[in-house]
């Protein structure tokens, strides 16, 4: 497979940040009360992610190792500020409904995670595709959670009333906080079923590595990691 395409596949399916890596849970749970919010959050994160991967990859030989985290934060924060101003100017209602979660993209662990584990070690083009893949994976995750929540909680899809309120009583819990947890849990369970089925068929999806550093020895999550076995054995 073409390496660039492989990056896209990796981000959207194999290491989907929402359903497989479980990264960026805060916006995932907080802003997905409707599909359009999920889509907006996902796309703005994607833009920041692509640009930050690009810049960090370009500067990877210049940034001293000791201060790499502050350097990444400065790059990401500048990008987020630009995105925030653009959104305030052109999509004010979306910007209002996403609220504080747009500035919070700065500390989104997907972005810092990709910067640390991928962009800081790989060439520019691959890093861009990694950003596109991861960003789209995040967008798909958020939009699908938003779709389910909006459909059950308000009978709407992307703001259009599809279930008539004449006979449909909205299950409002789904647009509230507990609904986010319920829907996320069921979608992750569904993803795991697919994973198991593929295993049984003999075409296993590669185990998620979820590494931030690629260094198993110092990783705090190595106890429950499924990716490390392949490396050590």
């Amino acid at each position, binding site marked *: 497979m073409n390496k660039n395409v492989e990056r896209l596949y990796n981000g959207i399916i194999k290491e989907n940040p929402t359903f497989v890596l479980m990264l960026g849970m805060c916006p995932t749970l907080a802003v997905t009360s409707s599909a359009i919010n999920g889509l907006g959050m996902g796309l703005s994160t994607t833009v920041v992610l692509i640009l930050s991967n690009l810049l960090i990859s370009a500067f990877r030989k210049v940034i001293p190792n000791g201060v790499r985290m502050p350097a990444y934060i400065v790059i990401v924060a500048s990008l987020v500020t630009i995105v925030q101003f653009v959104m305030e100017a052109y999509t004010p209602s979306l910007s209002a409904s996403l609220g504080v979660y747009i500035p919070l993209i700065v500390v989104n662990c997907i972005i810092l995670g990709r910067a640390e584990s991928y962009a800081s070690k790989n060439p520019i083009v691959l890093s861009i595709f990694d950003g596109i893949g991861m960003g789209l994976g995040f967008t798909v995750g958020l939009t699908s959670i938003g779709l389910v929540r909006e459909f059950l909680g308000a009978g709407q899809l992307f703001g259009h009333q599809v279930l008539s309120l004449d006979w449909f*009583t909205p*299950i*409002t*819990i*789904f647009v*509230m906080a*507990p609904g986010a947890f*319920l829907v996320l849990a069921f979608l992750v369970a569904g993803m795991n079923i697919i994973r198991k089925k593929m295993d049984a068929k003999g075409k296993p999806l590669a185990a998620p590595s979820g590494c931030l550093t690629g260094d198993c020895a110092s990783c705090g999550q190595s106890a429950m990691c499924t990716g490390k076995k392949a490396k050590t054995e």
Partner: protein
Amino acid sequence: MSDLYHVSSSPHVRDKDTTSKIMLYVIIALLPASIFGIINFGLHALLLILVTIASCVASEWIFEKIVHKKSTINDLSAVVTGLLLALNLPPTLPWWEAVIGGVFAIVIVKMLFGGLGQNFMNPALGARCFLLIAFAADMTKFAFDGVTGATPLAQIRAGEDVNVMDMLIGRTAGTIGETSVICILIGAIFLILMGVIDLRIPATYIITFVIFILLFGGHGFDGNYIAAQLCGGGLMLGAFFMATDYVTSPITPTGKIIFGICLGVLTGLFRVCGANAEGVSFAIILSNLLVPIIEKFTVPKAFGQVKEVKKDE
């Protein structure tokens, strides 16, 4: 070879009680309140009770079919869950919402956590709170004698006078099974006499609640107010039938008392300071979550156990 010499691992002394027998006792104990609810609120209440029980039993059976587990519907626990849930629903609720509640209680609160004995909160109350948040309008619409009206608790909150005698008998608005204190107490006495429930939890619950209401209720020592708070809402049903659920209440004697105190304080807090007039179900499921911690700190001393002395080093 005689069974007498057959050595198996402990426990060697077994009680004759089985899960289904205890569940049957609970169902019998709930019958007075259920029958009164049906007489009080009419046939739709009966329909709700039947639909909820059917939904609970069916979802347990279907879930166990799907995951290839042995069917456990014969232990009657799903019937108890369904009945308790129905008794906690307003009599005017659309039947399909009751079905969703039953599915939620069994599949999400009970089976996904491992089935009977593993659930971390009372399935019936978990489902009631789910419905309360999901269908807030339908779940807070109470009607009595065909007239939509406030529950006695809401009336007390609004500063109106309530008739405590009516509340004792149950001729008030409320959920299907909570209105008649007398019917609930008949069932509770039956359960206590049969040794199914332990008086520690309900007693400490009610005493703590009364003390809390005395101190913070804002009415001082007003007998009518306290009696109305005790008889109103789901306090009695919750104290005797839901807080005493074996799975979700502490097993240690001291733990039971602490659990009862938590319940009383939380219920009082919700009723006095909360946005709703009622707070029993939220108090019980919140306390359910505390049970593992309570049990951890109240392990009784085993016979002959000596407290470990710290050595000076």
